[in-house]
């Protein structure tokens, strides 16, 4: 382990039957627009851990936690824009988080995010490459995470 840690991960795709989904859709109240929200939990498979920094328990318990909320008027069952906070969770002390916005009809492809690593000591700033390619219930997304020492 030198000035960076590289993790390669695999998760089920957005529509996989393995994904635990919980959708919120509130009723209008006193002319307040309804709130659209979605949380997801996806099991992470750790393919590579360049610095051998993760314990067997952290590898086994790794999850992708997603918290997605809607922006704009709901016309087709989902708002036009979405805000997503994502957390690559290894345990309550160690995780990587990033935030972004996207269209509700976003495309598959290679997304490149900047994130913050927590609980990795002096390794903090993180490049998150998320190859979102899953279109069916059995497909997987591929991840390359690089955490840099500051």
């Amino acid at each position: 382990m030198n000035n960076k840690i590289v993790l390669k991960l695999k998760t089920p795709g957005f529509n996989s039957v393995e994904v635990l989904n919980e959708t919120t859709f509130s009723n209008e109240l006193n002319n307040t627009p309804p709130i659209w929200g979605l949380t997801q939990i996806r099991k992470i498979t750790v393919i590579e851990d360049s610095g051998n920094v993760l314990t067997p328990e952290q590898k086994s318990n790794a999850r992708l936690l997603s918290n997605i909320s809607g922006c704009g008027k709901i016309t087709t069952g989902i708002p036009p824009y979405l805000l997503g906070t994502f957390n690559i969770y290894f345990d309550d002390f160690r995780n990587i988080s990033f935030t972004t916005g996207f269209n509700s009809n976003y495309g598959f492809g290679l997304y490149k995010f900047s994130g913050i690593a927590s609980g990795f000591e002096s390794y903090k700033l993180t490049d998150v490459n998320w190859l979102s390619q899953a279109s069916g219930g059995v497909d997987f997304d591929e991840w390359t995470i690089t955490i840099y020492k500051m």
Partner: protein
Amino acid sequence: MFDDFVSIAFNTGFNSNYDFGLYKYTGLANDFGDYTIAKIFWNAQALSDVDRDKWEIFLYKL
């Protein structure tokens, strides 16, 4: 958000009766190549429907 891939994100907290003024945030830039850290200056000055806020955003390479 510029498209589904390129965006800048920041988080903060504030009073519900927040003031107008120059807010300075630190954010993270998504998919700007080596430029990852963002300094965001948001001059919130809009008082009516036709006013505009002004923004200056600086992205830094690490």
